[in-house]
Structures are given as structure tokens and as C-alpha cells.
């Protein structure tokens, strides 16, 4: 049973001839209690997809398609209805916690603000809950630190504060946009594991946006790979890593340095990801793809079951899958 059903989600910026399509008819489901990884390089549309779910796009952005949440369509929902979902049932955390926190307010105020908006707690009970939340996200000496300001926290601690704020409303879905990209690897490890533990404790689902395949392999149950605004492959993490069925997924995996191939040439993908105003026709990946044939230059491949149950948008999914995992 899916908690969230996304169908043909499209996000565009601008109008007329200069209109850019950042997210192009993206469809996916998030099941109760699962962690879905959205992975891609810069410009793939992964972050825009996440924001489009809650219609949190910058000015000039437009969303279409369907985002089904508890029998409602968030794309067409009224502002009031949407506000009731945002931050309450669905919370979001971002890459740079320093700019997402208000620098002139102590963290107590910022957590309690969310508690006031989304729970019935008042007075002492509210403060107690705020302290409890800081404890929950593993901030030592929570009682004292409640009255400190964001700049007194390290990057990792700030991200914990952000998570505490996001959890204040006991959301059922957490949207995490590159939550560990700005952090060091030992701190990233702490934060990812914290998110997983909290997910189990609170029975949430998580959508995790990242550019790091390693983070996906470590934390996600299912994954969707994005390229030039579309999902090009989606399936369980174990299956995709074992046998990628899209040339881009395989190329991305081969680009990551591995122990077994020390000081050898990496099987890199030639060229760079396309800019939104210059997305190639047909399969957007074809200019960089070693499997590309005429059909790839002509027809956009549909995302459909191509290798077993696995959804792939690659005309040559069978040939790619036959090569097995490059990892």
C-alpha cells in the first residue's frame, strides 16, 4: 500500500519560448516505512522533484501532474489544505542547515514554533517536548543547548536541529534534500544512521535526494535514478546495484572509484550532463552512451518493465543488464 503516489509530475520554469522543463513526467510510489533514494547529477531534476511534491518551487516555477497523498491531490489542493500537509504530515530537511535555520532566534524558539503550529502542546509541556526532540536526535546536554543560537552549533549538530524541527509534528513522510552533502564523512555517517533509526522508531517513510551512490547503497530500500529531468531507472537497491538496466546507471556506477581497480582507468561517461535548455532529442543520454543506436536518437524510451520487473527507460536495457554490475 503506497503512502505517496506520484504520477506524471512535471515542473517547469519560465514561460513561452524560454520555458524550461526541469522535471518531466516523473512517476513513483513511496510505500509505508520505506526509504526511497532519488539519485542523479547536477541538473538531473532530483531536488526540484522533491520540492515540487509540496509545490515549494521558486517564483516562476509551475507544477503539473498528480501527487496523491491520503486521498488528496497535492498539485490541485488549495493553499490551506496544502499548508495542513506541509510541515505536519510531510516535513522537509535541506542541504545547508545554516541557511535553513533563523540565525537570530535560539533553537528552542524554532522548535517550539513548529510544535505550536502542529501540535496542541502548550507551556511547560511544549518546552519538555522540545528538549525531548533534541535528545531524540542525539544532541548531548539538550536542556542547556535549547537556548543556544544556530551559530553555536557545528554543521552536524545544526543538521540534527533541523531534523528535530522537522520531526516536531511527527510527520509520516520525511523529504531529505542532500542532507549530508555539506558534512564530513564521519558526521554524514552519524546523520544517515540517525535518520534510519528515527524512521524505524516513528514509522516514517523517507525520500532521500543525493548525488552519492554510496549513500543510496547504505541507506535506501528502493532507488530512482534521474537524468535530464526524467527517471531513467527504478527498482530495489539490491537489484539495481547487482544488475543495472540503464546505460546511465551503469556508467554512473562505473565512474565511482573502487578498491579492486586501483590506479586503473575508470570507465567514465564522456561529456557532461546536458543543460535544461539543450536536452538532446530521443533518449537524453544518447550522446554520452556507448550503447546508443538510431532508435535512441529518435524515440524517447518509456519507463517500463524491461528486465524482469525492473522499470528502465533504456532501449538497450537487456544489453546493459547482460554486462552485469560494474561495481
Amino acid at each position, binding site marked *: 500500500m503506497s503512502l505517496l503516489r506520484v504520477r506524471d509530475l512535471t515542473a517547469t520554469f519560465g514561460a513561452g519560448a524560454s520555458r524550461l522543463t526541469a522535471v518531466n513526467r516523473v512517476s513513483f510510489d513511496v510505500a509505508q516505512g520505506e526509504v526511497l533514494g532519488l539519485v542523479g547529477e547536477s541538473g538531473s531534476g532530483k531536488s526540484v522533484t522533491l520540492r515540487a511534491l509540496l509545490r515549494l518551487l521558486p517564483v516562476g516555477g509551475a507544477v503539473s501532474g498528480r501527487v496523491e497523498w491520503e486521498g488528496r491531490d497535492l498539485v490541485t489542493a488549495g493553499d490551506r489544505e496544502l499548508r495542513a500537509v506541509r510541515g505536519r504530515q510531510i516535513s522537509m530537511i535541506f542541504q545547508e542547515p545554516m541557511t535553513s535555520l533563523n540565525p537570530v532566534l535560539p533553537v528552542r524558539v524554532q522548535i517550539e514554533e513548529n510544535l505550536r503550529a502542529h501540535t496542541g502542546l502548550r507551556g511547560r509541556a511544549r518546552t519538555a517536548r522540545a528538549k525531548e526532540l533534541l535528545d531524540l536526535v542525539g544532541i548531548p546536554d539538550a536542556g542547556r543547548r535549547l537556548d543556544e543560537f544556530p551559530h553555536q552549533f557545528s554543521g552536524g549538530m545544526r543538521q540534527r536541529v533541523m531534523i528535530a524541527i522537522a520531526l516536531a509534528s511527527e510527520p509520516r513522510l520525511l523529504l531529505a534534500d542532500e542532507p549530508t552533502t555539506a558534512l564530513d*564523512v564521519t558526521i554524514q555517517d552519524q546523520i544517515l544512521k540517525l535518520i534510519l533509526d528515527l524512521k524505524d522508531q516513528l514509522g516514517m517513510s523517507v525520500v532521500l535526494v543525493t*548525488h552519492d551512490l554510496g549513500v543510496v547503497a*547504505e541507506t535506501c530500500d528502493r532507488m530512482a535514478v534521474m537524468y535530464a529531468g526524467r527517471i531513467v531507472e527504478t527498482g530495489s537497491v539490491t537489484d539495481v546495484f547487482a544488475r543495472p538496466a540503464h546505460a546511465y546507471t551503469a556508467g554512473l556506477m562505473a565512474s*565511482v572509484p573502487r578498491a579492486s581497480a586501483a*590506479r586503473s582507468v575508470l570507465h567514465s561517461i*564522456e561529456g557532461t550532463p546536458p543543460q535544461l535548455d539543450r536536452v538532446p532529442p530521443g533518449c537524453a543520454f544518447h550522446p554520452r552512451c556507448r550503447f546508443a543506436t538510431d532508435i535512441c536518437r529518435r524515440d524517447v524510451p518509456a519507463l517500463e518493465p524491461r528486465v524482469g520487473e525492473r522499470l528502465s527507460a533504456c532501449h538497450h536495457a537487456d544489453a546493459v543488464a547482460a554486462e552485469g554490475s560494474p561495481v
Partner: protein
Amino acid sequence: MSETVLSVEDVRKDFPITRGVLERLRGRPQRAVHALNGVSLEVKRGETLGIVGESGCGKSTLARCLVRLLDLDGGRIVHEGTDVSGLTGPDRRAFNRRVQMIFQDPYSSLNPRMSVRQILTEAMRVHDMRPAAEIPARIEELLDLVRLPAGSADKRPHEFSGGQRQRIGIARALCVEPEVLVADELVSALDVSVQAQVVNLLLELQERLHLTVVFVAHDLRLVRHISHRVAVMYLGKVVEVAEAEELFERPRHPYTQALLHAAPSLDPAQRTRAVAARGELPSPIDLPSGCLFRTRCPHAFDRCVVEEPALTPRGTGHVAACHIDAPVFEAS
């Protein structure tokens, strides 16, 4: 392979924190961020030495000290028998011709008002690398070497992608035909697929030009892939040095082990919920006593508080700075 090209001897670097007038009047002592706290290392001819660590470990400061962009506050750096720590003027220029640097940020490391041709020509003129008439041909050669498309010479940096700009940075460093390249986070600003292209290029150039490379990065997978030897840094000290494979297969310092545990593996089957290292980096202004890692170390005991461990041998070419000399720690 064994001849030492650069040797770093007990190098220290502090960055003073500016005090306000009031603080000065009150006689508050001058405080400083201790970026390098006695770093010793050797760079051998023809090798790639990886320097890895998290932010605040001093790896970028060390890279800048190596090419004399920063003055040392203690210790010295010796290049082929000569102490280069105090070089100025023409001597420094001559040193820099032989030891060059590539920078992290593809956007700020190239002068936006100069074309590729101007950037390369200037460097070659200052170092008198070629007669003026041969410079245009040499530029084509260099651009070809770093695989930039023909016709790139007269473009300016903003006309290139991030990966291409890093290639221009490499060409600039190579145009004076150095022996040592110091690369500071060369690919960390690039997309994964583009990273691989630049890494491949660096590997290829090193073979072709017999370069010695100091590769500074935070990405363990990358460092392991590219390096012959690896030094791990923590809070301005080197805590472990070994051949790449040895270090990654048999890490002896608890911090190295934590780093390896924390780095996400590409194999979903190897997942664990155990946290690799607890706590956070202590303040580089007030360093812990004894071992700098003891505040986060799962194995710390009394001695670690009072005595700083020295780098001691743990096998061929393998040194680690830890009071515990066990082959492998219990898995935490």
C-alpha cells in the same frame, strides 16, 4: 621510486584570531587556530601520495605550505636537499617552476578576464620556458595533452564547463614543466561522471610525464584509487601513513578505521547500522591534551590523555600514531 623529492619536517602553522580593540586592552591573550601541529611526511619521486582527512584536518593548509603559498610557523620543507621554507624572489620562482599546484574551485581559480592563451603565455614567459615564437604551438600541444577541444585557446573561462576548467588548471600547472604537482581537492566540485574523466587524465599524465603527485582529498574511494601511498590527517597531524592497499586493508589507527567504516560502500549487502565514529571534531583553538583523537576514540585509555603518541612503525613503510599496537582492533 624511493628517492625523496619533498620532505616535510615537523611543520606547524597557526592562524591567529583577530582580537578586537577592547580584548587587546583587557590583555586577552592572542589565540590561534592550530592548523598544522607538527606534520612530518616524505614525498617520493614518481609516486602519488594521497593526503586524506576531513575538514579541519589541515590537509589544504599543508598543500598550500608545500607550494609556499603560506609561510610556516615552525619546522621546514626540504626540496631535493634544499630548505625551501624561507625562499623569496627568484629562488622562490625557480622552486615554484618545479613544484606546481592545481586548485579545487574551477570557478575562482582562473582569472575570468584572461583567455586560456593569455593564462598559459604569461606563465611560460615569466619562466622563460620557450622562445616567444614557439609559444602558440606549445599551447596547442598543452591543450591537446589535457584533451581540450581545438580552438579552446582563445576562449575565456566562463565559456567552459567545470570539468574543462579543471583541465585548464592542469594545463596551467603543466606549462612550466614541473616535477611535482600538488592537487588540492581537484575533482570534489565536479559531478561524479566528470570526476572520473579528470581522474583518468591525471593518471595518464602522471605516467606520460613522470610526475610526482600530492593528491589532497576528502574522498577515501578516490584517494585509494589514485594513490600509491596514503597519509591520513586529523586535527593538523599525520596519524597514519602506508601503501594504499595496506592502509585500506589493514588500517592501524582508530581514526583511519572510523573513516573507512563511515565511507559509504557501494555494496548494499555491506550495510550496517553501527555508527563509525561518535562525537565531533574538537576545537582546533583549544586542542585536547595527549592524543588528539582520544575524545572520539572507542579505545582511549589513561595514557592517551597525558601522552601524545608518536608515529611508530607497523610493518614495512607503515607508520601509525597510536598507543595501542594491536594488529587489528576488534570490530566496533
